[in-house]
Each structure stands twice: as structure tokens, then as C-alpha cells.
């Protein structure tokens, strides 16, 4: 066996695939929920220009999860607590984009540092530590699944209620405020929703790669449509495709799940960009046609 074959076999292996598949049934269910939530929240992350906030929240979420690992309590709960603290702080400190980015830049390394400290103190399995940063698949047991699905449901309901005014406030804040939309309240509410979404994503793709679920699919969808109906649908489809595809490909290999998820997600984005370039040209052509006066 040559070296290349060895590496290939490490990355893609489908031996005993049926038995392995049964092991990750929970993960597949959670993955679908996560794709749904991440794809929807991502639409607003793009609209409100919040990718950096997503990254900042995920580092604090990682700190919360590693604290929970050290204390031997529920990791999902720890991750959620970390996320909410970060999201709340960002929501309160940074109403304006410039303040917000500084606040995130200050919080992020602090969170990462705390996480590293907790992991250094933790004496358990090394795979648990690594998984929080770069993702894991088989880790979802039934109590965790209840937490993850429950939180997803909460996020979905919250998004359904605030969807329309949040879209108005995100896209056109001045006029929304003039029409009596509670722009600041919605901004804070969305940060909390985003915090929960990030905490969920950390469980599967790891803290470093949350952006691949919460930003890339929505950004890809935004390249090919501006329809308020198609945009969230495509974003969800891309997120679910990335995560479920990632889980299925990672199953037989010894490599963490995240490179699979990120590669699918990135490929989808690349394809959408190409399609989007065609779309832009089409609209560009419209301008050369004289408009009726």
C-alpha cells in the first residue's frame, strides 16, 4: 500500500458502514435540526453583518463547554451558558458595528484563554478536549440529544415570531424605527437566539468552525437569490447538506468531522458564487436596454 493510498483510506473508508451508521443515528437527527437552525439564523447573520460576532460567541461557548467538562456537568448546558453570556455582552456593549467589533475582539481571546485553562486542568480523555474545538460525531448521547433538540425548537419558535420585524429592522433600521419597530430590543433578542444557535453548532463542528454552518450556507444562498422565501430555504438546504454529508463521510475514518463539513460547505459556496456571477451579468444587461420613460 503506497502512502497516498494509506492517506486516502484514512480519509474515506466505508468498511462496516451499516453498523457504524446505527451508531450515529442520534447525530444525524441532531445534525438535521442544527442545519435548520444554523441555516435560518445565518440569514440574519449575513443581513446584520455579524460573522465576527458568531466567531466571538463560539469561543466563549467553547470556554463554557470546557468548564462543564472539567466540572463533570452537562457539556451542552455549559456551552449554552458561555454562549449566552457572550451574546448578551455583545448585544449590550455594541449597538453600533464599530463598538461591537471591538467588544468581540476583547471577549474572544479571553474566552479562548479560559477554555484552554479548563482543558489543561481536565484529566479525562484527550478526544473530548479536541472535539470541542474541531467537532465530533459519535458524542451525542440521548440526554444531550434532548437538550440539543429542545434548544433547536426554542430557537425556531423565537425566529418564527420575530422573523418579519427582524428582517425589517436588519435591512432598513431607520425606517423600521420610524414605524415603531423595537429595533434595539430585536437586536438584543437576535443576539440571544444567535447565542443558542452557536452553542448547538459547537457540539457538532466544534468552536473553531461554527462559521461554516452559521455563515457559509446563508452567504452561498445570498449569491443566487434575494427572494425572502428562497433565501432561507436554500440556506437551510445547504447547511443540512453540509452537516449530514459531513457526518456520513466522516463515519468510517479516523479524522474529525469538521474538514468534511467545511469542504462541502465551501464547495457549495464556490458553486453559488459562479452561479451568482451569471445572475449579476443578466441584471447588468438589463441596464443597457433603454427604459421606457
Amino acid at each position, binding site marked *: 500500500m503506497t502512502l497516498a493510498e494509506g492517506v486516502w483510506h484514512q480519509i474515506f473508508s466505508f468498511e462496516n458502514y451499516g453498523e457504524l451508521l446505527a451508531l450515529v443515528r442520534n447525530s444525524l437527527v441532531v445534525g438535521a435540526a442544527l442545519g435548520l437552525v444554523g441555516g435560518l439564523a445565518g*440569514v440574519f447573520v*449575513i*443581513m*446584520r*453583518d455579524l460573522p465576527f460576532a458568531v466567531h466571538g460567541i463560539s469561543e466563549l461557548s467553547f470556554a463554557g463547554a470546557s468548564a462543564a467538562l472539567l466540572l463533570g456537568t452537562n457539556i451542552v448546558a455549559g456551552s449554552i451558558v458561555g454562549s449566552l453570556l457572550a451574546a448578551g455582552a455583545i448585544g449590550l456593549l455594541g449597538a453600533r458595528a464599530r463598538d461591537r467589533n471591538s467588544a468581540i475582539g476583547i471577549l474572544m481571546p479571553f474566552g479562548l484563554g479560559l477554555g484552554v485553562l479548563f482543558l489543561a486542568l481536565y484529566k479525562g480523555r484527550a478526544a473530548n478536549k479536541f472535539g470541542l474545538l474541531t467537532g465530533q460525531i459519535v458524542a451525542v448521547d440521548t440526554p444531550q440529544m434532548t437538550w440539543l433538540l429542545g434548544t433547536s425548537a426554542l430557537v425556531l419558535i423565537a425566529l*418564527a*415570531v*420575530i*422573523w*418579519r*420585524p427582524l*428582517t*425589517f429592522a*436588519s*435591512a*432598513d433600521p*431607520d*425606517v*423600521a*424605527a*420610524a*414605524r*415603531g*419597530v423595537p429595533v434595539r430590543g430585536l437586536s438584543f433578542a437576535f443576539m440571544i437566539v444567535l447565542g443558542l444557535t452557536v452553542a448547538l453548532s459547537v457540539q457538532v463542528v466544534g468552536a473553531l468552525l461554527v462559521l461554516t454552518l452559521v455563515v457559509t450556507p446563508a452567504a452561498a444562498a*445570498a449569491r443566487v437569490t*434575494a*427572494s*425572502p*422565501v428562497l*433565501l432561507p430555504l436554500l440556506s437551510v438546504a445547504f447547511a443540512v447538506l453540509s452537516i449530514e454529508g459531513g457526518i456520513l463521510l466522516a463515519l468510517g475514518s479516523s479524522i474529525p468531522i469538521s474538514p468534511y463539513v467545511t469542504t462541502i460547505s465551501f464547495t457549495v459556496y464556490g458553486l453559488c458564487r459562479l452561479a451568482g456571477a451569471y445572475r*449579476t451579468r443578466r*441584471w*447588468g444587461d*438589463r441596464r443597457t436596454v433603454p*427604459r*421606457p*420613460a
Partner: protein
Amino acid sequence: MRRPAPAAIPRARQGGDQAAGEGSGAVISLRGAELSYGTRVVWQGLDLDVRPGEFLAVLGPNGSGKTSFVRALLGRQPLSAGTLTVLGGPAREAGRHLGYVPQQAELSAQALIRARDLVRFGIDGHRFGLRPRSGAVRRRVDEILASVGASAYADVPLGMLSGGERQRVRIGQALATDPRILLCDEPLLSLDLNHQRAVTELVDARRRSHGTSVVFVTHEINPVLGLVDRVLYLAPGGHRIGAPEEVLTSQSLSELYGTRVDVLRVQGRVVVVGAPDGPASPPHHTHETAHQAVPQTEEVRP
């Protein structure tokens, strides 16, 4: 060549019953209104009644409080003293009856919002909860887009529209609720002459067909000079309210600025010479007008 005025927004209230309910008949009423930040007084002693169907231009140099005036009318800036009523009540309760065209600004999501979505916000964007897609709302959006001449680019994202196209859509959005007051904040900024004319015609057509009052904040009076009933001129040294020919005179502006200001009238245009950052001075985008077919007199920069 003047284009014909576009059709009025259909299915809207007809003019005539506008003033019902208000004793004074004014849609906007200010008494002794003052706005100050700390010790800095922006404007004070403002007494003003805007009548139904009146076209009020708000002029003044940068920093004279035009934007604060807009924010006060929107109920987003409390007065330091005096009273303000909009449609007989507090300004913040008038939201639905006040169409607002904000200053042009880059929107972070302008690649994700189509012209029709912006108009739709004006109809039901503020409502919480999910609603099934409604054919009635869609038809109303189409009607509004047609009435402002924006049907051709209804499905194009805002980021791909020109400034003039975007401004038409903005006016459509402001008219979506069939408002009784139209509040436009520098709607002509960075538009070329043709688009300036198109935008002012849209606003004026609405005023004539529905008796909608117009508060029009602008740097440049000339594009609307023929339409304006009264001018509110805000300046560091006070303010003046009155017909354009009363307010825009050498004497009154010299008093306001505390320095010699000459107001000239050339071919039906007002040219202000000597005012620091005067409202009739040519805007920074003069080069954009150079290729227009319409002949334009060169204005004198102070």
C-alpha cells in the same frame, strides 16, 4: 422634456377629509419648540403649523438641526422645551400615518433586499409572527411599484439599482401606508437633474391627489422652488418661516447668519452668495449634472 406625472396611488383615501379630527386643522404643530444638546441650543422658539396638503421645505446649513428636526417629527428625539403634536397626538404615535423617506445610505443587506421587499416592509414589516403569503399584499406592492414607475426593477436587489431608482422605491415604501404626511430627508442628494425632477414630481403628484402634507428637508431649494408653499430656514442665529420670496432674501439671510449674504434670482433660480454652506450652493455632485441634456445655469459657489 417633462414627463407626465405618474398615476396616483390607487385605493387610497381621497383628499378632503384630511383635517377631520384636528381642531386647528394642522397636521404638525410646534409651539415654543426647542432642541438643545447640553448647553448647545440647536433651535428654539419654533412655532409652526403645517397644514394638510402644504409643501414645507426645511433648509439650513450643516449642523443647523435639520436632521434633529426630522427625528423630532418621527418621535425619536424628545424636545428640550415646548410642544410638538403630529396629527393631534404625540409624534411617536403617528408612525403609520407618516411616510418617511430617509437619507440615502448604504444598507448592509442591500444585496438581499429587492425593490418589492422594501415596499412590502412599508405595508406589514412591523408585524410580529408568521403570516401566510397573501395575494392582496402582493398586488398592493405591485400597484405601488407601478405608481412610482419602478415596476421594471421590482425583483432587482437594491444594491444593483441606481440612486434615482432606489429613491423611487423609497417613495413607494413611504406611500405604502397611505400616509397623511410625507417626510423626506434630503431625497435629492446625489441625484442627477432628471432624477431630481422625477422624485419631486412623484412627491408633488401625491400631494395634489391626496392632500398629503410634505416636509421636505433639502440642501438645495431650486429643484422644489416652484412647489414650495413655505420655507423653514434653520441657521445658527435662529430661524425664519415664510414663503420662499420672504425668507430667501438678502436681508433675512444676512440677519440669520450675522454676516453679509446676497440672494440673487437668476432665471427663476435662487443663488445664495456668501452664506457659509448655504442651501442653494451647488451640491458636491455638480459633475453628475454635466452630461444632462437639460441646460443649467452655473451657480456661484460662495
